């Protein structure tokens, strides 16, 4: 799902939701959940972290990278999420 405007790079908002069963449509201006504001790779990373029982070491082993490489990626994402939360 695109999260950034392809024209100006600003964060996109949800303006329409639709029920596939009864075709009810809701129109408005809703903020995207924080998780969805992340890129696909970042979302996958968080999912992998969850599935590895929160072990960066295990994630590093599965990805074939060193522990500091994986932890740095995690630190960068924490920084990005904190920034998204304050914006």
């Amino acid at each position, binding site marked *: 799902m695109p999260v950034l405007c392809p024209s100006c790079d600003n964060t996109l908002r949800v303006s329409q939701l639709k029920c596939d069963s009864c075709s009810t449509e809701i129109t408005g201006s809703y903020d995207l959940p924080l998780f969805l504001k992340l890129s696909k790779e970042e979302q996958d990373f968080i999912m992998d972290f969850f599935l590895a029982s929160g072990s960066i070491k295990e994630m590093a*082993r599965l990805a*074939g*990278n*060193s522990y*500091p*490489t994986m*932890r*740095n990626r995690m*630190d960068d994402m924490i920084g990005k999420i904190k920034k998204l939360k304050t914006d």
Partner: protein
Amino acid sequence: MKPGYFFNPFMKFQEHTLLITGIISLLLASWVAAALNIIYDGVINIHLTTGQNFISALLQNIIAIIVLFVFLYGISLFVNQHTRAIDILNVALIFRIPLYLMAFVIPATKPILKKLPDIQKMEQFKPSGPDLILLTLIGFVSLAVLAYAVVLLINGFKTATNAKKWFHILLVVAGLFVADLIAKIIITRVFL
């Protein structure tokens, strides 16, 4: 192995692999230094000597590694408090591997150094063509090896600490030179 890992093996290899590689290379380098009469009298210093033995070479290398580790770890805690000591120790160990290989190059200067007159008559010294080529070649190889070692050091530090600012890299380079000076003073006082 991807080309990027040649300049930053710390991204790829686990800490125990790097630690074992570093310790084995330290032992091998000390043995080679004893066999070829080489002294590592500083963090980035390597010279010819006489009467070298395995234990002295090993202790000289260990002093250089410990001094560098202390400086790098101090800087790393300033950059990122979550930095692990093992990652910095691995940087201090692995960064020296290219310098250890210089032990096979430095003895080639021995025949030329023997021809050098004392310092007052230096202007009369005219090295032959082949000697000049050899000295120039050794100079280039030494510079390339030192540059590669520094790249390993900086990349290793960046991986261990997640450092991104130029200021942090400048601190590492400054730390390297200060550590080299201190290690040189200690090794000279203890062994020479």
